[in-house]
């Protein structure tokens, strides 16, 4: 484990992009929102309650008690297919690093949540659509393995378009790798809690996303295996109301609970305490 400087301070060093607008429009109700207010309200629309997608670092700041010791912070893709289409994959990655301030689509580390020492992995949809390639697979695996060693619970917050096409079947194999780690971890009697945020689909939902002992969906998140577009093209019929929404999944028995962002830390803290506290001697 690399000793990392205080995470929140590090975040402060992130340069505010020059062309950032001051205002953001709510994609749900259309309200024009002042970005600074929005950030203070955890990126929840003050008018309709819509949950904007959250950057990994903001999510960590929201969930961790203050400390966060990042694991494998400098892991970067080896570009196994030496992929290139309109531009080399390496360039796309470089662009995403620039935009997001992250080296890859997941940040993993150890922290405390409401006083419980926990492994925490958070995906970032703004980096390659949160897709899982070698680095995401490796970092999630390293986190789970480290927590197995230290007998700590793991919380994984997903936001992902699935496996990363540019890494081909190597990306697909990350489903197997992370699953194998989760399986071993689970056999030790340790808890894996997953938090599915908007959007969680494909290879991430079909691996560790749905392997949680308890699965929490964030309010309004789109969650599914196949993307809506693929389904539309395949079946060419009207999709049911709320299809693939967190609430739809709850009704169909797929997730344990739907939780608003403002309640998330509390819900996780209670659950972690419940699952890990030594039972009171009777």
């Amino acid at each position, binding site marked *: 484990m690399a000793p990392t400087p205080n995470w929140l301070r590090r975040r402060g060093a*992130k*340069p505010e992009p020059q062309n950032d607008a001051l205002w953001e429009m709510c994609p749900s109700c259309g309200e024009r929102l002042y970005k600074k207010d929005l950030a203070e309200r955890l990126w929840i629309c003050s008018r309709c309650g819509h949950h904007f997608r959250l950057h990994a670092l903001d999510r960590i700041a929201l969930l961790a008690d203050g400390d966060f010791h990042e694991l*494998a912070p*400098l*892991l*970067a*893709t*080896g570009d*196994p*297919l030496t*992929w290139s289409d309109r531009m080399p994959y390496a360039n796309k990655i470089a662009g995403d*690093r*620039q935009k*997001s*301030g*992250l*080296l890859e689509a997941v940040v993993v580390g150890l922290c405390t949540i409401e006083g419980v020492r926990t492994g925490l992995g958070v995906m970032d949809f703004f980096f390659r659509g949160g897709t899982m390639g070698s*680095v995401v697979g*490796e970092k999630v*695996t390293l986190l789970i393995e480290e927590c197995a060693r230290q007998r700590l619970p793991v919380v994984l917050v997903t936001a992902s378009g699935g*496996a990363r*096409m540019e*890494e*081909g*079947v*190597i990306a*697909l*194999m*990350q*489903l*197997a*790798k992370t*699953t*194998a*780690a989760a*399986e*071993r971890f*689970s056999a030790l009697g340790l808890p894996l809690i997953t938090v599915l945020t908007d959007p969680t689909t494909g*290879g991430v*939902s*079909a*691996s*560790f996303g*749905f*392997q949680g002992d308890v699965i929490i969906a964030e309010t309004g998140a789109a*969650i*599914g*295996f196949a*993307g809506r*577009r693929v*389904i539309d*093209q*395949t*079946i060419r*019929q009207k*999709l*049911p109301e709320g*299809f693939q929404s967190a609430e739809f999944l709850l009704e*169909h028995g*797929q997730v344990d609970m739907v939780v608003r962002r403002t309640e998330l830390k509390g819900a996780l803290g209670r659950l972690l305490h419940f699952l890990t506290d030594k039972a009171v001697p009777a």
Partner: protein
Amino acid sequence: MNVIVELEKPLVELETKIAGLKKLNETQRVDFSAEIAALEEKARQLKLEIFGNPTPWQRVHLARHPKRPLAMDYISALDGFTELHGDRGFRDDPAVVAGYAYLDDLPIFVIGEQKGRDTKDNLYRNFGMPHPEGYRKAQRIMRLAEKFRRPLVTFIDTPGAYPGIGAEERGQSEAIAASLKVLAGLRTPVIVNITGEGGSGGALAIGIGDHIIMLQHSIYSVASPEAAASILWRDASRAEEAAQRLRLTSDELFEFGIVDEVIPEPLGGAHQDPQRVIHDTLAADKQALRKLLRLSQEALVDRRYEKFRRIGAHVELVHDTAAR
């Protein structure tokens, strides 16, 4: 339209012609032997020309060839196959076949993704695209294999899990995630055969094993070329380009260390000599099992863990190049 079927047309014509001449040769007094030999040489040349070095896109179509041996062709070649049905919860999914059989004298459980041979059959089999209940049936069979200490042999041939309303409602993600988890920890040998299309999580759901065998012209990919093109460029018609880039051929996957063994196919693809391909595949299964059966359950599961643990391509940077 299957590009291979198109390419095969002159060859098929030629072969019809040869067959006709051979018949004449037997019934008439004139000797056509020389002509036949010449045409047969021409056919061989044509075959080599067409199929000698298929492109990735051609391989995609070889893997999808309507005459390619399907999962049930391999399974039926086993001794005493008995099909077991159902997920015990919702429906028996015809896109997944499962049961028990003998590989020579070895009792094994089998799971295969099954396409149809014709349109009607394909509608019944849903073009080999499983629903969640298909994966849940597979999990049940996996557990039986573990409980009764019988090896598990799987046959992958699917464009992917079915993208539909019911499949999503009943938890396609959960079904695949759970299958992966069961296989990852299964305390019995698992042999995986990629005999046709290995598409995405729908393939991997029966694809975590101790020895991965792939037919020479099968494909194995993070997504079907069409889906990948649609995801990458919102243009499914660029599938050929995607096929080229995705590195989905057996030689590339063998190089990556993802596939442990490649079964050569006859010139022109497995459908040119199904018997041989099926025989070679099952022989490879048996040989692999023979080795795996010597391992303890613990050693087996550890070995499987390490096998998938090391797959990846990442580097450690010396400093943070992100702008944060």
